[in-house]
């Protein structure tokens, strides 16, 4: 296990540094950040003022290392719009996005695993084809559109759930469902193909020859092996979902990190945008590392390697 970490950590750290640099460069894309901050109606003096106030008159590499040094200490500077520490803003909003991401993943697994197993057990029947159809539909569904439809149907017509906002747990239901749609197709296909492979394997024949119950054959012997890649991918999926939550949080006005990023983008609040990109990327890197670890924990063949 330690050996494994020793191999993966340096790569993860190098990727993280690359992402740090990229998120710095991202904000410099426009050429002159001061003009972007000042907005279209600013005078030349205003721009100069902003330039010196934010240290944008220094050479680029000085700005870079200054920013890098601070970022490594968890200091992302101040928000232009909210007038608070960026780190604090993100810390406040992160629990909401995390809750959304985890709920979405949970729903996705609750749907994808049973359906994937069912499709594998009934391979090439109408059940299997229906499940694959569900995957195709999920893949083709634009998430923001699905969100709006749920708002109309569940929120307005049926009145079951609040339409938007952050107040109670009920506010998370629709966004979580919508978010889960982005992960369901791939998790379901992976479960299905893993189960088909597992069920065709020699050890399943052995399990049947041992006279084990159907449940034990399917779940204990079949799914246990099919689950290894699914669990690993689920961790990576969570990373994608957090990254994609910006659309859904905006649709439902759920005040998480994604919503914060969207607000900041429309308000030219670059330190926040930069920091959110960075934090989400770092979380993703952490999750891929976790995914590799889970893989190694679940697969005895990798554990000892």
């Amino acid at each position, binding site marked *: 296990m330690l050996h494994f970490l020793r191999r993966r950590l340096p790569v993860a750290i190098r990727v993280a540094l690359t992402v740090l640099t990229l998120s710095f460069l991202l904000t410099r894309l426009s050429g002159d950040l001061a003009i972007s901050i000042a907005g279209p109606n600013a005078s030349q003096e205003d721009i100069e003022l902003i330039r010196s106030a934010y240290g944008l008159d220094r050479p680029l590499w000085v700005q870079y290392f200054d920013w890098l040094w601070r970022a490594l200490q968890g200091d992302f500077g101040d928000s232009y719009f909210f007038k608070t520490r960026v780190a604090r803003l993100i810390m406040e909003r992160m629990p909401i996005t995390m809750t959304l991401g985890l709920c979405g993943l949970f729903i996705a697994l609750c749907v994808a695993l049973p359906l994937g197993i069912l499709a594998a057990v009934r391979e090439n029947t109408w059940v299997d084809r229906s499940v694959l159809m569900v995957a195709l539909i999920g893949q083709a569904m634009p998430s923001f559109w699905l969100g*709006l439809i749920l708002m109309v149907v569940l929120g307005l017509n049926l009145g079951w759930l609040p339409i938007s906002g952050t107040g109670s747990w009920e506010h998370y239901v629709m966004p979580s469902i919508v978010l889960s749609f982005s992960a369901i197709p791939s998790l379901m296909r992976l479960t299905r193909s893993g189960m088909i492979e597992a069920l065709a394997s020699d050890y399943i024949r052995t399990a049947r020859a041992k006279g084990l119950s159907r449940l034990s054959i399917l779940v204990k012997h079949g799914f246990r092996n099919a689950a290894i890649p699914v669990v690993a991918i689920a961790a990576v999926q969570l990373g994608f979902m957090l990254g994609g939550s910006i659309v859904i949080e905006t649709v439902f006005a759920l005040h998480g990190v994604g919503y914060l990023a969207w607000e900041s983008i429309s308000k030219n609040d670059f330190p926040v945008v930069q920091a959110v990109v960075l934090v989400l990327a770092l979380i993703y890197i952490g999750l891929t590392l976790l995914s590799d670890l889970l893989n190694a924990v679940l697969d005895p063949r990798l554990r000892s390697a």
Partner: protein
Amino acid sequence: MSTVLQPAGAGNRRRIWRNAGTILGAGIVGFITFVAIFAPWLAPYDPFTIDLGRRVIPPMWMEGGTPANILGTDQLGRDYLSRLIYGARVSMIIGVATIITSGIIGTFLGVMGGFYGGRVDDAVMFAITARLSIPVVLVALAVAGLLGTSFTLVILVLGLLLWDRFAVVARSTTMQIRNLDYVAAARCAGCSPMTVLLKEVLPNIATHLAVVATLEMALAILLEAALSFLGLGVPPPLPSWGLMISEAKEYMFFSPWVIMIPGIALFILVLGVNLLGDALRDMLGTDLSR
């Protein structure tokens, strides 16, 4: 038991089912491509003409609808069907242009990594890992926020962000092909690496890349719609389906059809492209799904 025999019936049934999917997918994509190309001849009205006197008229089959506007009008009185038809153009152009851009980048990186191996491959793998850790939607939005929205910018940003799967597939298939006997023979015969790449490797990985291209095109179309929906994609008054949904949002609680129509169009197009991709994959017998 060394051979597992399949009952003959199941194989046939599966083939028929797949054929149905292929025909449906090809039909959808073919139809929408046709609509996109011939939009000026097919659209009954100019999609940009505003008529504030005739706003949010429902489709003709609903109460208050009129045969003059088959799918009704939007919040500015523009003919919805015409905007939908021109919207197909936006989706198709962005989808195709994106996969061309990202396809070139990804294929180049993947082939280099797979062909040369060693340090080159390490660098390519690193680039792929770094690319995957960047949240696509967020970065695309941030860039659009910084540089302002434009049609070409959407293509460029998506093209620069969606090359990862091309690179992964190009890399692994190139690796397999590089080690095949006839490629080794060509190299031994003194062909330059460039010749080998162009004549032996590329034609052989092209089919795999075609499968990736369909998947990425579907993704690009969805992402464009999402960006436009958030107001940072295609700028108005261009009739992007995502933008149409965004503009119609205020009216959706009173007249849900305003979001249903462009949404269904988007859904059907993406479904068609995905079906086509699945069909292509089955034909090739490769499994790239993840």
